[in-house]
C-alpha cells in the first residue's frame, strides 16, 4: 500500500511535469477562479465597510430656539435616548456649533467675513440624533414634532434630508445585492470553466486510462496520479494567487484610501490573511480534485 501511494505520487508528479501545456492552462484557469473567489470575499467586506460608513454619516438634527436654556435641551436629550429606535444623541451647544463652523471653513475668507458681518454667534444649540435604521428616522421626527416640544424647537431638519437619507439606503442595499449576485455568477462561471478545462485535459488521457484498466491497474492506482496532478495544480495556482493578491492590495491600498478615507485594503488583507489563505487553498485544491474525479469516472468503465 505504501509502495502504491509512493508510486502514485511519483506518477502524478511526472505526468504533471511532462504535460507542461495542459498544466499551465489548468493553473491559469484555476488562478482566475481562486482570484474571483477571493475578490468576492474582499468586495463583500469593502462594501460592508462603505455602507456602514455611509450609514454612520446619516443623522438628523433638532435645532432649539435661542431662548431655551441648556437644561431643557438636556432633558429632551434624556427623553430621546430612551426611545428604542435611537442609537445615540449628541448635544451640540451654541458655542460648539460656532467652533465647528469656524474649524470647517477657516480657509474660506468669504464665509469667515460674512460670519464677522453677522456678528455674535448666529448658531442654534442642537441635538444630533442617530437611529439604528433609516426607516426609524420618521418615528423620531414624529416624536419631536409633537405639541410638547412646539415651544422649544426651532426646526427639525429631517424633512430636508429625508429624500437623501432614503436614497442612500436604497442605493446601498441595491448595490450590495447587485454586487453579491454578480460576483456569485462570476464565480459560478469560473468554476464551470475550470471544471471544463480539467475535463478536456483528462479527455486527452482517455486512451491512457483505458489502457491502464486493460493491463490490470486498479481504479485507485489509476485515479491517484490524476488527483495528485490536480492537487499540485491547485497548490501552485493558490501560491500564484496569494502573491498576486498581496501585490495588488499593497500597490492599490494607498490609492483606494484617497477615495475612501479609512478604508485600507492592505491592513484588511493582513488582518484577514488566514481566512483568505484558507479560502484560496481550498478553492484551488477542491476544484482540482473534484473536477478530475468527475472527469475520470467516465473512462474507468472499461
Amino acid at each position, binding site marked *: 500500500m505504501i509502495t502504491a501511494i509512493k*508510486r502514485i505520487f511519483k506518477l502524478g508528479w511526472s*505526468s504533471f511535469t*511532462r504535460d507542461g501545456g495542459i498544466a499551465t492552462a489548468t493553473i491559469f484557469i484555476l488562478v482566475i477562479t481562486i482570484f474571483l473567489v477571493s475578490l468576492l470575499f474582499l468586495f463583500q467586506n469593502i462594501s460592508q465597510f462603505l455602507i456602514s460608513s455611509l450609514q454612520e454619516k446619516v443623522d438628523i438634527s433638532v435645532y432649539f430656539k435661542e431662548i431655551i436654556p441648556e437644561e431643557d435641551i438636556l432633558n429632551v436629550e434624556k427623553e430621546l435616548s430612551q426611545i428604542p429606535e435611537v442609537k445615540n444623541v449628541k448635544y451640540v451647544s451654541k458655542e460648539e456649533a460656532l467652533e465647528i463652523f469656524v474649524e470647517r471653513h477657516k480657509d474660506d475668507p468669504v464665509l469667515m467675513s460674512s460670519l464677522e458681518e453677522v456678528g455674535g454667534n448666529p448658531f442654534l444649540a442642537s441635538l444630533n440624533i442617530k437611529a439604528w435604521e433609516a426607516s426609524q428616522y420618521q418615528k423620531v421626527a414624529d416624536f419631536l414634532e409633537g405639541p410638547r416640544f412646539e415651544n422649544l424647537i426651532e426646526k427639525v431638519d429631517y424633512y430636508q434630508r429625508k429624500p437623501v437619507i432614503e436614497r442612500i439606503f436604497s442605493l446601498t442595499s441595491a448595490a450590495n445585492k447587485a454586487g453579491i449576485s454578480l460576483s456569485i455568477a462570476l464565480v459560478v462561471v469560473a468554476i464551470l470553466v475550470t471544471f471544463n478545462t480539467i475535463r478536456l485535459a483528462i479527455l486527452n488521457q482517455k*486512451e*491512457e486510462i483505458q*489502457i*491502464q484498466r486493460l493491463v*490490470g*491497474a486498479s481504479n485507485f492506482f489509476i485515479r491517484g496520479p490524476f488527483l495528485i496532478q490536480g492537487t499540485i495544480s491547485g497548490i501552485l495556482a493558490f501560491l500564484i494567487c496569494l502573491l498576486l493578491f498581496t501585490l495588488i492590495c499593497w500597490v492599490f491600498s494607498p490609492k483606494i484610501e484617497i477615495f475612501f478615507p479609512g478604508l485600507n485594503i492592505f491592513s484588511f488583507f493582513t488582518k484577514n490573511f488566514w481566512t483568505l489563505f484558507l479560502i484560496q487553498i481550498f478553492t484551488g485544491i477542491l476544484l482540482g480534485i473534484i473536477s478530475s474525479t468527475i472527469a475520470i469516472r467516465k473512462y474507468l468503465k472499461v
Partner: protein
Amino acid sequence: MIKFEDITKIYLGHGENPPIKALENVSFEIKEKEFVSIVGRSGAGKTTLLKLLMAEEKPTQGQIFFEDKEVNNLKPGQLPQLRRKIGAVFQDYKLLPSKTAYENIAYVMEVIGAGDEEIRRDVPLILEIVGLTERANNFPAELSGGEKQRAAIARAIANRPEVILADEPTGNLDPYHTLDIIRLLLKIQEMGTTVVLATHNKEIINRLGKRVITLEKGRIVRDEERGRFIL
C-alpha cells in the same frame, strides 16, 4: 483453464447499419500450459474472442470461464485481478502514450505491486530480450511500428502472467524479428505459461506444429491438435 461455452457476440450497428455477428456459438477449452493458435481471415472474430476473454467486451450470449470464474460476471472492481493474470499483446499495441518504453513495462510491474528493486532488475532484462535496450527512454510516438510491437510484447511478459494473449504480435515485424518473437513465445510456454496466439501468418502456423483453431465468419470450422494453416 480457459473455457468458452456457446459464445455469441453481436455488435449492434449504428443507425441504419445492420448488426454484426462477430462470433456465433463458439465453444472450446484451453488447458493450462497449452500453446494455441487462432487463425482466420480479417474479421473472422479473432480479436473479438480475445477481447471477450479480457472482459473488454461482454458476450451477447454464453459463458466464458477463466480458472473456474465466469469472466462476464466479474464486478468492475474484480476485473484488475483477472487482467493481472493475463499478458496481452494488442493488435494496436495499446502502449501508454505518455510513458516511455521503460515506464510502460515498469508500469505493469508497479500495478501488480512488484518491488522497486525487482523492477530495476527485470525491465532492462526484458527490454534486452525484445531488443529495445536503446529505445528504453523513447515514447511510443517515437518508436517504429515494429519497435512498438516489441515493446507491447515486452510489457505482456513483464508481470509473468499465467496466460499470454497475443493478437497479431508479428504483424509489423520483419521475418528476422518475427522468428525471434515466436521463439520467445515458445520458450515462455515451455516455462509454464499458456499462450494464445491470433495470427494470419501462414508460415508461422505451419512451422509451429501446435494446436490450431480456425475461425471463419465467427464460427469455429476446425480445431486440430497439430494444425496447419488452411483457409
